[in-house]
């Protein structure tokens, strides 16, 4: 399978991958390419239009908007990655145990998932973040608290359908311990659906992070998080809309590229839709 062929087959996925690669590049090398320090306040330079010195202009405190956006990419993508990994690390084992062991353990775990899942996600997240206090760590905790259940549920449902298939029964008869059967047969089966789910979720998680920061529950000033920047620009929307348009576009681009990649992954990995 060569690259050109895959691009021709799904140009949108290729576009998503290209966008995300660019963003990851910005994330990794941001500190070396930004023209100005993203935190330096210069009241004399406030609300400047784009120039060679300030490619996107400056904000209400005279900080370089471009530098802040690049710095923000690091924060946003980094946070989203941490959330996804944490969520998978909690959700996959819970789903595996629940589905494979079954019985009372399954009942207890699934009641917890159902009970917690019955509450509206945003209300839970807002109350967790509000209760623990507004900062990024607590924001992560609150997003993990509402997201892990989906993974546990997906993993459990796959395990439930696979564990009755003859190859899993054969593996048990062959003397495999529960761990061996899970490692050799079940975990490979759940990886690709979890991958697709994670790719789809990354967009939502980035939106959540931005939304909470916008509401003042996440990143605190002067951190250049995109949602927080949206909030910073809000009072100037009538006169200098760029302050909100640039961070908004940044969020849009990341979310779109993640969703495009997720769609491509789903088509590629999902055997049923082939």
């Amino acid at each position, binding site marked *: 399978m060569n690259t050109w062929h895959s691009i021709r087959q799904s140009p949108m996925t290729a576009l998503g991958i290209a966008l995300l690669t660019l963003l990851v590049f910005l994330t990794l090398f941001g500190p070396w390419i930004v023209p100005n320090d993203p935190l330096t306040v210069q009241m004399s330079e406030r609300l400047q239009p784009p120039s060679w010195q300030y490619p996107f202009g400056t904000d209400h405190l005279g900080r370089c908007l471009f530098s802040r956006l690049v710095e923000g990419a690091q924060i946003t993508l980094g946070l989203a990655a941490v959330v996804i990994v944490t969520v998978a690390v909690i959700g996959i084992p819970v789903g595996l145990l629940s589905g494979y062991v079954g019985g009372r353990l399954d009942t207890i775990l699934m009641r917890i998932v159902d009970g917690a899942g019955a509450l509206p996600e945003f209300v839970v997240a807002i109350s967790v973040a509000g209760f623990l206090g507004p900062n990024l760590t607590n924001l992560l905790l609150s997003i993990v608290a509402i997201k892990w259940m989906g993974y546990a549920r997906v993993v459990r449902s796959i395990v439930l359908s696979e564990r009755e*298939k003859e190859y899993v029964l054969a593996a048990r008869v*062959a*003397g495999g311990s529960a761990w061996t059967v899970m490692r*050799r*047969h079940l975990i490979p*089966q759940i990886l690709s659906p979890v991958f697709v789910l994670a790719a789809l979720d990354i967009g939502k998680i980035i939106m959540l992070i931005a939304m909470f920061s916008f509401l003042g529950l996440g990143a605190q000033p002067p951190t250049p998080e995109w949602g927080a920047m949206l909030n910073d620009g809000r009072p100037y929307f009538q006169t200098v809309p760029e302050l909100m348009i640039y961070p908004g576009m940044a969020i849009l681009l990341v979310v779109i590229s993640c969703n495009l990649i997720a769609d491509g992954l789903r088509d590629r990995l999902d055997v049923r839709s082939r």
Partner: protein
Amino acid sequence: MKDTKESMESSPLLTVNRLSKTYSTAKGAPVQALQDVSFHIRKGECLGLVGESGSGKSTLSRLLLSLERPDSGEMYVHGVPLNGLTGKALRETRKQVQVVFQDPHAALNQRLPIWRSVLEPLDNYPDVTPPFLADVRPNRRETAAKLLEMVGLLPEHLDRYPHELSGGQKQRVAIARGISLRPDLLICDEPTSCLDVSLQAQMLRLLKRLQRQLGLSYLFISHDIVSIRMMSDRILVMQEGRIVDQFPSDQILSEERHLYTKQLTAAVR
């Protein structure tokens, strides 16, 4: 000599005593899958189990394989009870009871190459070395090649994936896996019913040859009375979870047979 033969007969390989299993359904009455089933299998014997679908044959094999637990009754392998075993003790008895399932396509993990599937039991029991594998056991791939050779496959099949094999070849792989630990009892749960008619006889001959070569005992489950008769020394007939008839296979046409047995044989005569 006479003594050993007698002691063998007094403690059969497998004894099943008044085994019962009921499944509760979501709505409606619970289903009695097995009711008071008792029988035994002697060493080196092939016991045929015939009955139509829903008669409890597969439930019986799942209980014997410890994939499910009976509601009541006992099972003994070499006099050791199978009931309620867990962990290490369960793994010990599983060495002695292996299986060949009905659907060879479902019985192999599609993501694993053939040699990994064949070696699965031996990988789980590093301490087991069956006599027929003694010379190749240290080398995993040679062991797998030898097992494939025993069921009539070639070394080139080692690295294939299940979807590259035909149904008959996959069933041979499943048989190779079933015999790899040299179990005392191999449960063949309708091993031919998913195969073409032309392949069925081949597969039965293979099973028969392996039984003689390795001195295995079989519980041969089928709904096809012809293959049961060809394979078995004795035959059990099951209907609606009960054993209704039990006889040596050469007396299958005797006048004393149960009405249901007569119906089964009449269908093919």
